[in-house]
């Protein structure tokens, strides 16, 4: 059972986001890249499946700042093979990525491909379902539980309000993971250091990045709020006092 986990690096939203000189794209020259949070869940789900039923977990990351860290951390958690894809990913859209990943995943003979359900910077859909289509495989997203029985997968798909649907999906398949069955495990830095010694990162070149299918952006801007919050300022004790008065005004105290 080959379980491939795809990881994406995204700009950290805690940092300030800037728009570049063209006015139509993010200025990513100084971005801090972090793993898409749903990929942590995809990896956790992959490792859980391996722990339960055996198999090989192969983790794939694009070559951006932080990729080695993502890959070695995955190894420390239990992944078996690490692959870094070389290419110019900063400007690549999801259509291009899906096409590029197709050849790589084919070669890995994946039984199951786990991706994060989506990423915050998507403008042209998600890689998971597009990759599934390129590979002629079924896709289900918003998944928060997977088990494998007799060459089929039983998955739990999330709907609003906590409703779940249990679905049967033939393998091989691509699944978009929203949450793993348990919180992503924590791994000590010392174990990541050990993984750096024990593991080798394989490198593969991205084929041509064909961007067809993504929309052209004319302009990017920061949203203007219709109304901005009235800010309460002062030392903590003063702010607390203002809040207490507000609670009284609003009739809850």
């Amino acid at each position, binding site marked *: 059972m080959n379980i491939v986990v795809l990881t994406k690096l995204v700009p950290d939203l805690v940092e300030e986001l800037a728009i570049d000189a063209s006015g139509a794209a993010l200025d990513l020259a100084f971005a801090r890249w972090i793993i898409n949070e749903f990929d942590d869940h995809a990896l956790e789900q992959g490792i859980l499946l391996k722990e339960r039923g055996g198999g090989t977990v192969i983790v794939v990351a694009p070559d951006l700042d932080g990729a080695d860290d993502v890959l070695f951390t995955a190894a420390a958690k239990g992944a078996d093979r690490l692959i870094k894809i070389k290419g110019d990913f900063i400007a690549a859209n999801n259509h291009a990525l899906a096409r590029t990943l197709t050849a790589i995943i084919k070669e890995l003979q994946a039984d199951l491909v786990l991706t994060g359900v*989506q990423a915050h910077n998507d403008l*042209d859909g998600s890689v998971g379902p597009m990759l599934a289509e390129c590979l002629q495989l079924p896709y*289900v997203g918003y998944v928060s539980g997977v088990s494998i029985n007799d060459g089929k997968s039983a998955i739990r798909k999330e*709907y609003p309000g906590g409703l779940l649907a*249990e679905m049967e999906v033939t393998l091989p398949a691509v699944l978009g993971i929203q949450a793993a069955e348990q919180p992503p495990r924590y791994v000590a830095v010392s174990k990541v250091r050990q993984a750096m010694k024990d593991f080798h990162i394989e490198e593969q070149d991205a084929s041509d990045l064909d961007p067809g*299918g993504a929309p052209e952006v004319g302009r990017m801007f920061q949203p203007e709020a219709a109304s*901005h*919050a009235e800010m309460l300022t002062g030392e903590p004790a003063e702010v607390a006092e203002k809040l*207490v008065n507000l609670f009284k005004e609003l009739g*809850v105290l």
Partner: protein
Amino acid sequence: MTQDIYVIIEHLRGQVSDISYIMLAAARELAQSTSGKVVAVLLGYNAKGLAKDFATDQVLYLDHAALADFTSDAYQKVLSDLIGREQPRAALFGNTSIGSDVASVLSMRLGLPLVSSCRNFTKDGKFVSQICGGKIMAEGDLPAPTALITIVPGGYQPDQGRSAESPSITEAGVPALDALRVTLSKYIEPEVADVDISKEPLLIAVGRGIQNKDNIELAEALAQAIGGVVCGSRPVIDQGWLAISRLVGKSGKSVKPRIYFALGISGAPEHVEAITGSDTIIAVNTDPVAPIFNVARYGIEADMFELVEVLTEQVKAAKG
């Protein structure tokens, strides 16, 4: 090739989802700039009646036993057939558990352009998408020939997509639906919870800014002092710090308390869509440009760990 705007209706166990009405409203705006019709596309099994309050020029109804409940494979087959054949100017899908399983696949299968996370259209028919947790908007011309678009809430009200008059319904053909690779086994109901946050008048909501499970106690203490209930954003629930019944947002519950007190929540669209029914939102965040301040009535740019304990003490004192 037509100038019509298709809306792929979403429904779950006999109930049409709000996003469907939001999409009908969005389609109306877009159809004005393309001079086309709004066409609601309804897939189901004996489900024609669901269309009775759609604000649309026409309903295309596709009926098949395999369409009784949503599965990605069946919807992909039916919609690639329909959209490939009819070539509307655009097809709108929800950026949801249903629409997101279909739109990206169709983009590759039919070789059609795809725009995701569109919040609204401009008067001249440009898409405006909301990305980066609500911090950035991206605007562009509607791609040709048929634009596949996933819609997020926020730009239109569901009521704008409802009508008192029933629309005219045309049945359309369904391709063979055999050898489906995805099948529904059953639904699993949410567990019955100790409290129903959608009915609570005073919510203390915690986000990733709370840092760890132990710190939840700070929020609990404040909630207890003031007589409220603690709830949280998705990362807090996914880390196991709060029960899933306390999840506020797109995948959790929508809430409408008198006060929604948000601690360390950035205000991502998936969270905000479920709190706009609150009377008064008060937000505490260290980031002065956190999107939560764009929906809050009152804001405090501060470290919650410096504020919450002091506040809890003062609330206790005020209560005497």
